[in-house]
């Protein structure tokens, strides 16, 4: 709870900075504030800080262990994002507005991981989405950015309508907006799955799949990710996706004791669709940003697999690890992509990466590590993230699903290597890139995190305790 107050206050302070002229100090203040939020979140997770507000707020938000861990992850992502994209704000006239939009959308993300009532789920999604519609169009002169913004807005509000209709139908069949009441109803002996309940749940599921861009509902994602400014894209594919999937997971593991037959098929369609569509369409992309967008769709397939098997005790932990690994990797990839984009007049096609190793070895090295981690090559974190989730599926007896997922990942290796080969085997056409000291430290830190998280789980999982 304290995190929401700090971040919301920080957002208001940032807006005030526009009026009183202390714009110069905004970015340091925000970074300091986010660091404070991070410390508070870490202390709360360990139980060092505990106030009556923390446990539950009028039964609408519940900051249990699940919520606290995801708040910590989201704060980490946002903090890294603000540090990496420091210059996204410095060259803009209205940087205070953009930074405060980021902070307000963080509040939405925190609500989405801690809701116990559908009102808060709805409000969280909207608080997260509305700033993102604006940020997607923050490059006002560019028609591509405009298009991304309008598409995101139309698709997002359409999904919100579906979400609300689903919530209304669930309310009609259970008489309560509390997610936990839903569980009481569904575990009751006299529970019959009425058509109203099923339709409501399916609509809710589709809306959540829409927000997390799972396969049959993914059409907006590549366009929006390509059109938005690279910094915003990296926020969308890390922070927004993490919040959406965490909310998805929370919905199912609070509301249902197990996945009923009807939803099982829907889940399998979402999972297999995401894995295959994402990976296969990505093969044909020539734009690196669009390629990463499709690859993020295929990662959603894995994350949904963890949500499908939520009744397994380790599923939440493996979803958390997957998201952490994916978010750090994506931040690293987008950081390199943005630097390359700035040094090639906004060109982000794969040929812009030609001979990157000769232009700047550190950039090429970081991107290679990030892409290998996304492809799931051991001993990087992406491998262990995938391994944990496939292990759960295997324990559940879904042997064929594991085979399907591995086949889809093999396709993934192909297009990730396309960029790696462009970087190492082609001759550079553009001038070398020089990095500032801060960028070098950040790149090294991100590489270390990707490798370290992998080795960490490698060491701790293999040594029996």
């Amino acid at each position, binding site marked *: 709870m304290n995190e929401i107050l700090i971040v919301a206050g920080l957002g208001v302070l940032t807006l005030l900075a526009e009026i009183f002229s202390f714009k110069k100090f905004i970015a340091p203040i925000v970074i300091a504030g986010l660091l404070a939020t991070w410390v508070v979140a870490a202390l709360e997770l360990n139980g060092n800080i505990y106030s009556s507000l923390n446990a539950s707020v009028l039964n609408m938000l519940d900051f249990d262990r699940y919520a606290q861990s995801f708040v910590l992850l989201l704060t980490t992502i946002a903090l890294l994002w603000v540090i990496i994209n420091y210059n996204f704000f410095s060259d803009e006239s209205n940087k205070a507005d953009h930074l405060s939009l980021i902070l307000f959308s963080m509040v939405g993300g925190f609500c989405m991981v801690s809701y116990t009532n*559908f*009102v808060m789920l*709805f*409000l969280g999604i*909207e608080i997260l989405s*509305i700033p993102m*519609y*604006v940020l997607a*169009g923050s490059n*006002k*002169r560019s*028609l*591509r950015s*405009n*298009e*991304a*913004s*309008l*598409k995101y*807005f*139309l698709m997002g*509000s*359409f999904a*919100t*309508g*579906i979400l*609300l*209709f689903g*919530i*209304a*139908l669930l*309310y*009609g069949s259970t*008489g*309560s*907006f509390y997610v936990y009441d839903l569980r009481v109803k569904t575990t009751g002996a006299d529970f019959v799955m009425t058509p*109203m309940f099923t339709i409501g749940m399916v609509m809710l599921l589709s809306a959540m799949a829409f927000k997390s861009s799972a396969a049959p509902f993914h059409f907006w994602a*590549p*366009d929006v990710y*390509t*059109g938005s400014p690279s910094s915003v894209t990296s926020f969308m594919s890390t922070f927004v996706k993490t919040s959406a999937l965490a909310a998805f997971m929370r919905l199912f593991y609070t509301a249902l004791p197990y996945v009923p037959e009807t939803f099982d098929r829907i889940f399998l369609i979402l999972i297999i669709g995401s894995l295959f569509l994402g990976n296969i369409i990505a093969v044909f*992309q020539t734009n690196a940003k*669009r390629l990463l967008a499709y690859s993020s769709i295929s990662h959603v397939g894995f994350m949904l697999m963890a949500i499908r098997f939520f009744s397994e005790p380790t599923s939440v932990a493996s979803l958390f690890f997957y998201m952490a690994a994916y978010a750090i990797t994506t931040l690293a990839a987008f950081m390199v992509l943005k630097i390359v984009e700035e040094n090639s007049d906004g060109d982000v096609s794969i040929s812009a990466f030609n001979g990157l190793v000769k232009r700047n070895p550190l950039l090429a090295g970081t991107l290679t590590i990030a892409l290998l981690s996304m492809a799931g090559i051991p001993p990087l974190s992406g491998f262990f993230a995938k391994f944990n989730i496939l292990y759960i599926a295997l324990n559940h007896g879904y042997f064929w699903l594991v085979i399907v997922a591995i086949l889809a990942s093999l396709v993934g290796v192909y297009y990730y290597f396309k960029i790696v080969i462009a970087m190492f085997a082609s001759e550079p056409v553009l001038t070398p890139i020089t990095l500032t000291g801060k960028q070098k430290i950040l790149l090294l830190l991100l590489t270390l995190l990707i490798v370290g998280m992998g080795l960490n789980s490698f060491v701790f999982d293999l040594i029996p305790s």
Partner: protein
Amino acid sequence: MDIIKGVPLTSYILLCSILFAIGALGVLYRRNALVIFMCIELMLNAVNLLMVAFSRYFNDSNAQVFVFFIMAVAAAEVSVGLAILMMVYRNTKTTDIDALSKLKY
């Protein structure tokens, strides 16, 4: 109030579903961004009506509070949407969404 209760709940559900479907089809078929905004509003208002009908049926005021939240959020959403549309209009001089097809392959 008696008249409202005299109408069976099924009729409300049917009416709201039809309104919602009209809104959804409008989003899918219309090409003018402003008309699409109106169709989205229609979808949200269908939900509002359904919530109020259920609320009356259950004698529970929670849903009516939810309706207020939906109305407030819808207003915020549409104002952001209109701002985005203004930005698009300045660059393209049209509100036809087919003008925006730069990002296709």
